[in-house]
């Protein structure tokens, strides 16, 4: 045990590096993002499903929509109120939520979620680039 000093110093440095993100960011909580609703979305009051469901489960809903439309064929989604929607990200979701940067990206960036929808699906159907 002649290297006690070296080992302990090494351990201290290791622990310091590993815990760096925790103490570096300590006390600097970033405000929870507030996605901005477009006037159309506000006027609609309810999304395809109740807001609480959409907040937590929208990714599962979109996954079901994707597989159903692409692989099985049906394209109409009838919610519990009997309202029908075309199961389309670009033409239904983005028709209302046409502000992707202030709506989708805000939370996705905060949660470090990086969905690859926009590699193919057209971001802003109304504004032609």
């Amino acid at each position: 045990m002649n290297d006690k000093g070296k080992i302990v110093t090494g351990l201290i440095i290791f622990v310091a590096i590993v815990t760096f993100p925790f103490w570096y960011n300590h006390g600097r909580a970033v405000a929870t993002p507030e996605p901005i609703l477009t006037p159309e979305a506000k006027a609609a009051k309810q999304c395809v499903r109740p807001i609480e469901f959409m907040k937590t489960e929208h990714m599962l809903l979109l996954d079901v929509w994707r597989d159903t439309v692409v692989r099985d064929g049906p394209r109409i989604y009838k919610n519990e109120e009997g309202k029908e929607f075309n199961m389309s990200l670009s033409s239904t979701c983005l028709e209302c939520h046409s502000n992707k940067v202030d709506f989708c990206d805000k939370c996705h960036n905060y949660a470090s979620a990086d969905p690859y929808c926009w590699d193919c699906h057209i971001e802003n159907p109304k504004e032609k680039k």
Partner: protein
Amino acid sequence: MESSRRKFLKIAGASAVAGLGAHSILNALASEEQAETVEIKIGPKALHAKNWGMVIDTRKLTTSADLKPIIDACNKIHNIPIKLENKNHEIKWIWEEKYQHAFPVLSGNKYANDRVTKLPFLVLCNHCENPPCVRACPTQATFKRKSDGIVMMDFHRCIGCRFCMAACPYGSRSFNFRDPRPFIEHESKDFPTRMKGVVEKCNFCAERLAVGKQPACVEASKGALVFGDLRDPDSKIRKVLKENYTIRRKQELGTEPAVYYIV
């Protein structure tokens, strides 16, 4: 010893029964929760068939100028990157092909009639009954839709291995070697683009059939293309097939193409 084993078995039995009971109660609760009235339906205008097929009347499509509007219609609505300059990177869903490339076996006939051998042929995915591409795909990204026989692509699942391209005897599949977005002429909002690294091909306009429209090429062809249900003996396409002699591409391979040519 005796009594403690007995006790143990009793407790074990009772807890097993309790566990099973709890499980089924939980299940019942869960299924009640799921009994919401959300429903997924097929659109009311959707066109249905058991097996979609197409007849191409080459008597009405004699020059490249006749084919161009048909090809352009497809390129436009499907966001096909037509501005790619490198021939190897080309993306083709429906395109013009020479006789000897479209029908290599038939073109072995050296003395065949000039009219046919000089014709420009419109070629696309044949939506085979036995699609070799579907067998080759390791992720089931390409699949034959059971409801209507269309050979479709799920771009989300494609890993870009290109086995399907090697398997397809018709060259109907193209690979995105580059991000296609900058090479699209008019971005159509109704159809997604693709990304670098996926394979794509004709989908018989499944998205249009779902809303009651004919495929874009058929609509643009002014009657030179007939589209319909091959399994319905009273359909227009079957009538056309009955009245005219038709050939199919590389029929000898046994893929059973659904695209027929009147020559």
